[in-house]
């Protein structure tokens, strides 16, 4: 089936099987391998992308369901070689080790802070509890997201 989406600001049109998940479509048909697949059953959160501004698990969504949607992946969070403030905070706080869960953490945190720039630690932990990380124990992740809040104040997206 033909699907048209806007991905990271670019219009794409692609023919997919109905059974293809959005995650597999992004990774294997559009070459956006930054979105990772860690469980394929909607638990780990590694595949989180933003669909029309909201964080969603791309393994729990068919590519055909994303027709006409605006999708933002980790590749769309920073435009050039520079890190976004959120990404820089991740680096500073050592909020990633193996880096596999990181794209999902970034997209989730970006979606959260874009809507709730005042999110406190409890809220950040609650939201990130939908993303599994096996390396960090989460402490540094939470610190990084809390620090990155500054860049989201005033409604502009970092």
């Amino acid at each position: 089936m033909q699907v048209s989406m806007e991905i990271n600001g670019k219009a794409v049109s692609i023919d997919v099987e109905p059974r293809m998940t959005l995650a597999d479509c992004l990774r294997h048909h559009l070459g956006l391998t930054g979105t990772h697949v860690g469980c394929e059953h909607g638990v780990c959160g590694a595949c989180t992308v933003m669909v029309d501004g909201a964080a969603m698990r791309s393994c729990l969504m068919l590519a055909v369901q994303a027709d006409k949607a605006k999708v933002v992946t980790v590749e769309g969070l920073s435009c050039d070689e520079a890190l976004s403030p959120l990404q820089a905070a991740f680096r500073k706080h050592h909020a990633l080790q193996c880096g596999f869960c990181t794209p999902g953490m970034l997209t989730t945190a970006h979606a959260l802070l874009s809507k709730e720039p005042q999110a406190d630690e409890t809220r950040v932990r609650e939201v990130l509890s939908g993303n599994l990380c096996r390396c960090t124990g989460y402490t540094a992740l939470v610190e990084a997201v809390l620090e990155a809040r500054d860049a989201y104040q005033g409604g502009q997206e970092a």
Partner: protein
Amino acid sequence: MKLPSFEYACPATLAEAVRILADHEGEAKVISGGQSLMPVLAFRLAAPSVLVDLRNVPGLDRITITENGVHLGARVRWCDIESHDGLRKAHPLLVQGISHVAHYQIRNRGTVGGSLAHADPAAEMPGLAVACDAEISVQGVAGSRLIKAADFFDGALSTVLEFDEIITGIRFPAWPSGRRWAFEEFARRRGDFAMAGVALHFDLDAAGRACNAHVGVIGVCSHPCRLTAVEEVINGNVVEEDLVAAAAKAASEAVAADVTGDMHASAEYRQALIGVLVERALAHAQV
């Protein structure tokens, strides 16, 4: 864990949607948010020939508050309930119960209708529906009908829906002012399905005694149910320490015959847990 092969239909009307379901005689499945169905497909526990996506069907995503209660369209998402201005007043128990559903990303996509249709024994929405005497509206080829929540769930992951029927919405009866309520659940981690949960509400008569008690439980039996024995203990009495203890005891006894154990917890534990949750819910019941 790639999904099995299926066709995909995205009808523009409800009539068209039910017709596709009817044409496939039970081989078709409805997909809305897909947050329960997609894992089922990923594990290949179901192999529908066609998925009927409701996303283009208009009118199913509304939250309506009237003197008749709260009506949620089938495609209302958890995040819609969470962010709705009027709901917290119109049905605080509903909002509180829904706050326990899954995680952020799933809350952005999972729907009321999907949860009702999936009928997980530990899910909050079916439990709230049963506890609150909600009515589920469904549409089939032959027309629409209303089904009482108490009659809707007939087993684990099982409902009385016919294969051509689609849930269109659910109505929670109006919430009188002064109603006492509480929602308590116990899960191993935030967002997990509950090991057990309790949704309850009751009103106070002029003398300050409880009446019209509704006590619904999830996670203990094959489907959510009300504990009438506990309600009887509560009705006509002032809710104080001794009554709370009696209700808790009654709750453990009431589920004794039906409670099941699994790899995560024994039946004995769940039975005790229900008593504890009823006790805490009654003790914390608020206006």
